[in-house]
């Protein structure tokens, strides 16, 4: 990794973080005075950051630029500099975060228009953008960690935005705690790097990781993966992400679909030099990705809550990305390309879902939707394009980037390659099933609306970002794979693309995936399109559906393995501490000091006992000294 010192525009890239951070500070400290224009300021800071980010990216020219800021913590042999690394990898993330972020800020102006706390919403969103930019721009693992927990805080605040709802408050806490479990892994990985190499900077660690013993590198890789699983909602820490849908829908779009939850993928891609040294850890990344992409796809098929379907879809799609980066050099670019296109279409889908909820009095129950295509034409068309992009309809975004992952899996060339590729294709079919089911239940069929619901199209301030994102959903894949290949842009980071021989011809993969996709969509039509959708979920269903409805019992497992034993332990310890440890001492105190009231009332008594105590102490000392000199 050869970095060059920053000059010119890129030297000012700290402003990328400072702008939204200042926005958050002004909105939080300014109080009600800023209510009138707070949302505009919040949007402007992110938009300005996007312009700056774009300018920096254009000026980058394939370099890896190091921006030195100040000494954060330096003591002993530890030296943590506050510094940024602006390179092709962080640049694409900067553009994704500020670009999609700015659009979602615009959308939120309309979506949160009637919320009395809209200003605070924009403050938290700004805070999130700042923390996320620090996460991807930091030039060392500690800066990454600060951003990592910073986005966790923003996520907590935004999930609990409607904190009067106990379910929102609980979901926010759950997200934070499960993320902290992952954070322990990330923290320990950093400690291990420092203990081994005496540095925590990317340059220092990546430059000398080859000298570290294999077992230790594997440990680092697995600990980093634990952190990545927590942040990205990957198995076994996936249970918080669907609950996070309690937050306002723009939050789901920005944080829990397009950006924050993909931070795990960033971490693994950024740590490529570490994973290059440890096939074991990389294999575990693969396994986690494969397991999660199936879990997400299966559970998504049985949900009736429109946001939950999209959330499990996100879990599943990030599983694809983990699978890709777990493949090593062959998959990094494929995984990141899918991350970018997913950022477009999933953000667009969530914004569409928000528009639908707006029309349906904030209901999320797809069993009470139906027939919305004619009432909300813009939403329908933009959502439809996102849908097609997600299921991998030929020549739309998902088609390019998902196929690239599947091809890369096959390219392993061994049996596992076929297993992984096969699973990915199967999950593509399931994706088509649950998304088609969602489309049919929401936009087609007879209306099953609740009383008093009068669907209407959302205002322009909301539909405009949806339109932009749907254009992105259509074109992004083609642009990133064919026109401006991401592979070339990222070559300074991951090396020059190799003209690899494909094990299975790409055209064959595409045809196979498309067929399976059509199969899945057809199955969905048979289940919900052909006949009337019951407004109450049928109770008599197969055990598989029941398990999928309950998210494959993830919460049940967490509760019975951790939560309930933890509560029991806590209660037992409180009892022990009050009765056992304290009781013993209280008995002693009672004999020594007599009743407390007497001691408290008469001060002379306490002075006397104090003097007595000193005398007693002196006697002990004399005895001890005698013993020492005698011995």
């Amino acid at each position, binding site marked *: 990794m050869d970095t060059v010192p920053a000059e010119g525009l890129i030297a000012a890239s700290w402003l990328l973080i400072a702008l939204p951070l200042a926005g958050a500070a002004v909105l939080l400290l300014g109080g009600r005075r800023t209510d009138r224009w707070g949302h505009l300021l919040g949007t402007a800071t992110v938009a300005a950051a996007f312009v700056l980010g774009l300018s920096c990216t254009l000026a980058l020219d394939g370099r890896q630029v190091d921006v030195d800021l100040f000494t*954060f913590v330096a*003591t002993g*042999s*530890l030296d943590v500099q506050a510094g940024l690394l602006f390179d092709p990898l962080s640049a694409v993330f900067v553009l994704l975060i500020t670009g999609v972020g700015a659009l979602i800020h615009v959308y939120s102006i309309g979506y949160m228009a009637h919320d009395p706390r809209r200003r605070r919403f924009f403050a938290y969103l700004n805070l999130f953008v700042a923390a996320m930019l620090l996460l991807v721009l930091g030039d060392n693992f500690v800066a990454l960690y*600060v951003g990592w927990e910073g986005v966790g805080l923003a996520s907590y605040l935004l999930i609990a935005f409607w904190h009067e709802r106990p379910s929102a408050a609980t979901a926010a806490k759950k997200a934070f705690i499960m993320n902290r479990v992952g954070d322990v892994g990330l923290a*320990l990985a950093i400690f291990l790097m420092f203990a081994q190499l005496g540095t925590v900077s990317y340059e220092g660690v990546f430059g000398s990781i080859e000298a570290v013993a294999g077992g230790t590198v594997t440990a680092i890789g697995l600990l980093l993966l634990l952190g990545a699983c927590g942040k990205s909602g990957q198995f076994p820490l996936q249970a918080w992400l669907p609950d996070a849908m309690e937050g306002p829908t723009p939050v789901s779009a920005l944080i829990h679909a397009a950006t924050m939850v993909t931070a795990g993928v960033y971490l693994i891609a950024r740590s490529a030099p570490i994973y290059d040294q440890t096939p074991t850890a990389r294999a575990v990344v693969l396994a986690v990705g494969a397991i999660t992409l199936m879990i997400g796809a299966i559970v998504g098929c049985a949900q009736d809550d429109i946001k939950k379907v999209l959330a499990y879809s996100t879990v599943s799609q990030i599983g694809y990305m983990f699978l890709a980066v777990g493949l090593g050099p062959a998959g990094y670019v494929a995984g990141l390309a899918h991350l970018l296109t997913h950022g477009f279409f999933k953000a667009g889908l969530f914004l569409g879902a928000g528009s639908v909820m707006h029309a349906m009095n904030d209901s999320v129950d797809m069993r009470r939707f139906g027939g919305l295509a004619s009432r909300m034409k813009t939403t329908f068309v933009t959502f439809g394009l996102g849908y097609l992009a997600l299921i991998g309809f030929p020549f739309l975004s998902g088609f390019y980037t998902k196929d690239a992952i599947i091809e890369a899996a096959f390219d392993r060339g061994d049996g596992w390659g076929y297993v992984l590729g096969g699973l990915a294709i199967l999950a593509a079919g399931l994706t088509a099933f649950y998304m088609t089911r969602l489309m049919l239940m929401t936009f087609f069929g007879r209306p099953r609306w609740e009383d008093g619901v009068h669907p209407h199209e959302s205002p322009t301030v909301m539909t405009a970002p949806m339109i932009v994102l749907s254009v992105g959903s259509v074109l992004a894949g083609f642009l990133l794979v064919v026109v401006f290949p991401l592979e070339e842009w990222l070559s300074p980071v991951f090396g020059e693309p190799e003209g690899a021989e494909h094990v299975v011809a790409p055209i064959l993969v595409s045809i196979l995936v498309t067929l399976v996709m059509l199969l899945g969509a057809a199955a969905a039509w048979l289940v919900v399109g052909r006949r009337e959708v019951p407004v109450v979920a049928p109770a008599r269903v197969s055990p598989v559906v029941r398990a999928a409805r309950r998210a494959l019992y993830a919460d049940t497992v967490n509760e019975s393995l951790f939560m309930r034993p933890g509560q029991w332990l*806590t209660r037992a310890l409180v009892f022990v501490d*009050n009765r056992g440890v304290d009781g013993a001492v209280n008995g002693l105190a009672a004999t020594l000091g007599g009743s407390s009231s007497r001691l408290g009332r008469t001060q002379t008594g306490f002075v006397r006992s104090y003097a007595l105590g000193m005398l007693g102490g002196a006697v002990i000392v004399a005895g001890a000294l005698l013993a020492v000199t005698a011995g």
Partner: protein
Amino acid sequence: MTDFPFLLAMIAVPAVGAAVVAALPRGRELLAKQVTLGITLVVFLLAVLATIAFDAGGDRFQLTTSVSWIPDFGVDFALGVDGIALVMLLLVGVLVPVVVVASWRDTPPGNRSMTTFCAWLLLLEAMMVGVFAATDVFLFYVFFEAMLVPMYFLIGSFGGPRRQYAAVKFFLYSLVGGLIMLAAVIGLYVVSSSELGEGTFAFDALRQIEIDPGVQKLLFLGFFIAFAIKAPLVPFHTWLPDSGAEAPIGGSVLLVGVLDKVGTFGFIRYCLPLFPDASRDLAPLVLVLAVAGILYAALLAMGQSDMKRLVSYTSIAHFGFIALGIFAFTTEAATGAVLYMVNHGIATGLLFLVVGMLIARGGSRQIGDYGGMATQAPLLAGVFLVAGLASLALPGTNSFVSEFLVLIGSFPTVPVYAILATVGIILAALYVLLMYQRTMHGPARGVLLTDDGTAAPGGSTATAGSTTTGGATASGGGPATGGSTATLTAPAPGRLRVRDLGRRELAVAAPMVALIIALGFYPQPLIDLIEPAVAATMEDVGADPGGVEPATTEGTD
């Protein structure tokens, strides 16, 4: 300027002030409070000036003043500070005026007067400065014990319903520890007289002498037990939840924020340099207690239903981190531990203060008596959250830096303990967020509800409920169960009637929040003050003052 006796002044000003305030006529409470605030601000100013006069790269002890006190025993009234003591003095300087403002509207129980409260507070400040500034071991011991007296009266006279029980418990525990330490102090004197021919209590002289390992262990234990009671390590901790809960809020802040730090300060100032061999030999024992405390106290914190007891337990867990950092014997970890002492004083200080603001509104210390406060009191909720996040050491808050340094610095030398301690950060998130959710989130409920005749507007009934600490905690305090959940599902009648933070309360919270964030992003100035003293201590104890050597040396930069 450097010749000015800053340290002496920092003791004398509040001590004289205490006498002046105590002599004020009974009716002049406002004047007493104003005078007290003025004096504490002067002390703060002196602390800042002392820091400016201090040269981080200079001698180990600076700003020294020494007067012969009891020449027969070689006792000097000797004051001086290294970086470790200096940052503690800064903490004292900041916290005491904040406490004065925070206690402005307190109404003491019975017919006691705020004038007396102020006098004890000033005397306590003088003692606290003395205990950190003493460079004579006997003088340290005197301040160490004398500090008990004002605190005893602050708890026993101005505390909650069970204040007398708590005060006596606090006193007895400290007394036992103090006596054991006295034995060790005298023992140290005897050893010095046999080694040097003339007995001395001067820290610098004592540091030089080689003590027989067996004797070292005994003396070490004498000091250690006293310190382990003061900054309570499990199993010496049970006095703290009672004292922390029953003390008036200002007292709790200073008790947990500063007084208890004398224990951890003692570890690094006295145990390590004076008894290096014993410190190394007995370190595993300390580390076990430290890590047990981190996990045990965190689990206990989760099970508390009384907010002040909860915060007290979190502090016990934090003291475990500090002890871990000191006994890991690396410059990184020990610097982190000293920084932790300062940061914990600010973060937990603010947490106690904001809990006090909550109690001032509801009249109850029980978590279950509150709920949904964030809706109507967003500022209160915001400050509560900042204090809570600092307690769980979120990056961007001051505590993160110190906790991170302790953990990353102890990992290379004592990895197993560091890993177990790192797991503690999950528990920290749990106890903070559980308390926050139950009091601030959810629908309005609890003692502040009005209308519908369901309200019990604060005051006596609720406070009486909180007096049944022990048993009630065990039965009703499980996380996410018990009373609170039942109230959650009950229909929510009426509305909350909560005032958000007033101007005085904002003046209390604002400097603390500012410090939490400023030191979270730019801690290096404090580290630069602390590190030379820590490095010297590491040298005393035979560790490399330059810090951790990487295990893999090849190819590092």
